[in-house]
């Protein structure tokens, strides 16, 4: 019985709080309705600007969708747009890999040519390690 009484009092208190809060909110509403013309105008300007941006965003979405559909023949324009935007990057990375490959192959082929010339020559390769032969090469040719 005591609990019921407490529950009842809590509910009554909550209802009274809500009534009071709504009365205050009604007063705040009344106050907000009496804004100065300058503030109201600036709010209107802000709203118009926001709506303009929203309109532009919608137009862009529609434009992209239409152009994407025209290119791809399907409505999945965003996927194609994303793919198209990363395409140059993919091409750049691919190009760099190809250049690197080409340079490595060139270096290998130059080294192979030198090796081939050295190994195919009549002069034994150990001769280049002989200090006397090095001196002989540096010395001016004698008559």
């Amino acid at each position, binding site marked *: 019985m005591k609990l019921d009484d407490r529950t009842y009092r809590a509910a009554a208190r909550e209802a009274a709080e809500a009534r009071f809060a709504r009365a205050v909110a009604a007063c705040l509403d009344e*106050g907000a309705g009496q804004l100065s013309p300058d503030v109201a105008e600036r709010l209107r300007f802000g709203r118009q600007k926001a709506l303009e941006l929203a309109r532009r965003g919608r137009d862009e979405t529609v434009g992209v969708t239409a152009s994407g559909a025209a290119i791809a023949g399907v409505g999945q324009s965003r996927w194609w747009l994303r793919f198209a935007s990363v395409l140059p990057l993919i091409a750049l990375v691919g190009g760099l890999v190809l250049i690197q490959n080409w340079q490595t192959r060139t270096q290998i082929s130059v080294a192979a040519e030198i090796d081939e010339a050295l190994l195919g020559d009549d002069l034994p390769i150990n001769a280049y390690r002989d200090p006397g032969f090095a001196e002989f090469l540096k010395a001016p040719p004698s008559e």
Partner: protein
Amino acid sequence: MATEKELSDFLKSVEKRAWKRAVYAVRDEDAALDIVQDTMIRLAEKYADRPAAELPLLFQRILSNATMDWFRRQKVKSQVVRNFSEYEAPGADSDFDILDTLEALGGPLQSESAAESVSRAQILQTIEAEVAQLPPRQREAFLLRYWEELDVAETAASMGCSEGSVKTHCSRAVHALAKALKAKGITS
């Protein structure tokens, strides 16, 4: 997806209250205008494709964030959020019978001697001043719950706190307002 008219009507319906709330928070009319304009633009730019029913909660969240951004820019955020306990209403109001006061104030608010001395505009001003003096979290909860008419769950989501905290903040705000307004002679 909200139509342009729905978005326009929504912004129109909410802009004045939003500005007032921002003024209560930052106490600077020009800054409040910037905050509301920023909020409307962010909503229109990022969420214009959302259903109209989602706009109120999104708007409130963006407004709260924009207000906090303003405080960050002013480098006084730490003062605002440093310790909410400092701003809480005093204790249990043990010497104050809130129920009686609430019953008395439950109807349309007016001055005890309104007809004689105090104009309606002054009453509204007093009420606004008392709302502005509430601790920030209490004021936010009170305004979202009763002025913006969000339910407890929506208010909690917007404020980033629990539903219990919302109820506590609202109750304390109501008590503080009732006490302050009664002290100024504003009753039914």
